[in-house]
């Protein structure tokens, strides 16, 4: 009976350390994107007194009534509405501009050349595992995106439909807000976002 007592602690230790390791791993990995519900539209530009926001009916756009929101990239520059002659100017949809500092809306200095939204072009179709994505967008004279909307997006299954019903309008808004593809992907719709940007980038690069 010279049997040495076996220790429970020693036997449980590997399992306990694995549990600890997985707890740590879980804490390190878990960075929930919050899903689509947390995905935000671009902020409504806040007037700081020195910038003006005007609505430009997108000239020659296939849907003549669709208006694009154009925001000033820098406070100094102002953008002037340049309605195309042949398009009847619809009531400029007033964007809520919480004017806090100065109630006066500055008129654009005539020295700055007017920025005009160009005619839309159609980007390439980008395949994803959920289905193809294709974007149509217009660039302004500065080469920035002034109008964008997706033409094709994955609708193969209900889940894709559900996701993209939310994600596609957000992507359209973000593209115009940012003027390029530097906006972040919509969480919960990463793959569609990625393909959207790829198609949009092709338009910006003039490859469309």
């Amino acid at each position: 009976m010279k049997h040495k007592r076996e220790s429970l602690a020693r036997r449980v230790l590997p399992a306990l350390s694995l549990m600890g390791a997985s707890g740590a791993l879980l804490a390190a990995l878990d960075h929930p994107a919050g899903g689509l519900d947390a995905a935000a539209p671009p902020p409504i530009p806040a007037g700081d007194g020195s910038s003006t926001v005007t609505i430009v009916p997108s000239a020659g756009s296939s849907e003549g009534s669709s208006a694009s929101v154009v925001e000033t990239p820098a406070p100094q520059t102002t953008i002037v509405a340049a309605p195309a002659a042949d398009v009847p100017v619809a009531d400029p949809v007033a964007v809520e501009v919480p004017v806090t500092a100065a109630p006066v809306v500055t008129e654009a200095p005539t020295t700055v050349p007017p920025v005009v939204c160009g005619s839309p072009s159609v980007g390439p179709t980008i395949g994803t595992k959920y289905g193809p994505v294709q974007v149509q967008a217009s660039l302004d004279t500065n080469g920035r995106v002034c109008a964008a909307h997706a033409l094709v997006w994955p609708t193969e299954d209900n889940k894709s439909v559900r996701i993209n019903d939310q994600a596609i309008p957000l992507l359209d808004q973000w593209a115009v807000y940012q003027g390029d593809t530097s906006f972040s992907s919509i969480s919960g719709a990463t793959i569609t976002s990625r393909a959207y940007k790829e198609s949009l980038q092709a338009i910006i690069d003039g490859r469309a």
Partner: protein
Amino acid sequence: MSMLMNHSSDNGSSMTTIPLATPRAGRLNDTDLLAVLSAFAFLVVGTWSAHGGLRALTSWDTAWTSAASLSGLLASALALVALVLVARPRSIERRYGLDRLFVWHRILGDSMGLLLAVHVAVSLVAWTRDLGLADAVSQLTGAEPYMALATVGAFLVGMVVVTSLKAVRRTLSYETWWFVHLLAYAGFAMAFGHTITLGSDFADDPVARWTWISLHVTVAALLLLSRWGSLAMSIVRPLRIHSVTRLNGDTVAVEIGGKSLRGRSGAAGQFCFLRPFARGLWWQTHPFSLSAAPTTDTLRFTIKDRGDATSSIGALRPGRRVAVEGPFGAVTPDVLDGRKALFIVGGVGVAPAVAMLQTLDRTHEPVVLYRAHSESDLVHVEELHELCERLGGRLRTLVGPSARLAVKDPFSVSVLTTVVPDIAERGVVVCGPDRLVHAARAGAKACGVPSSDIHSEHSWW
């Protein structure tokens, strides 16, 4: 010793020795199991195919995702079947034996591990094609809903599979391996969420989703009731050691009994898992064969000191409580089906033969071939002599190290047919160390005994 002999060899003298109820015969046979498994496989692959899995394979854009779904579904399905076996369902165990259930569990577990590896790799490829590697990894390990949990779950299940590989398992003690193995429960629970939310198989199809969920709930309930419930019952209603009798230098016979025995069923030839409530022993459980036909009064086990906790069990005093799970085992007198019997046993493997002989009658004309290293290793010999005499059978012992035996192979055809001329018409029961079991099986087969008439249980633990 003499007290023991009296008890077990003379059933008539004791007033209250009522044999335990014989466990019901296994209800499911090969065909039934195959049918259930085929239906399950059809359900799983059908679910995948019905949601466009098969069609998606035709395009590279979608094939990787589809392959990830299929490998994931199959890995889950194999895990479910493996978990059903853990529950030790009586309707299967009684026919096939716990040892075969565990072999199946191992095969299912290994295949599941392989499919899990494929699932992880293919999913990564599918996402990398759309997002690039860095984003794919970050999306798959944390950003997507339930994926952080699933990643950690895969890690845990992977560790369970790795520690069960023979090369690794050999280096671990049973309990170390077992405690790690328990993490599989956590792993599967963690991975469950992503099967519902991520794939298109269950997210969009309520029928498939609820079928899948109820399958998991059923298996969980089965495990809880059958596996953990029986463990809990064995602890809540423990038996007590009645007597410990030293048979030789390293072997003891332990008699255990108690009120809760009356509700159990069991047969000679089966074995139980013992968990003595004693310092240093309560957290481990060891399997021991019944060495006497079980009665409502006592279960007798013959335990050889193998240098681990088995030595401490021999040192326990009467009155000590022991949690007893079982009996389990498919090799009972039923397997002889009324035919003549041959027992080939080695060392302490004699235990189930003694128990079975107690329940046989003269039609079985039992022959017992008993192999041991030394005279002192022979236990229960007087009992065997007495039983064989009563049943019109014979006991042959073969003692000594293999190198010094007169015959090179004691289980060769010539030896076996000389000692047991009618071997081919007997049901053969083999019990002992693995080497003896293999040699005896091969010998009996060579003598013309069909494999279906050779019965043995391997020590898988």
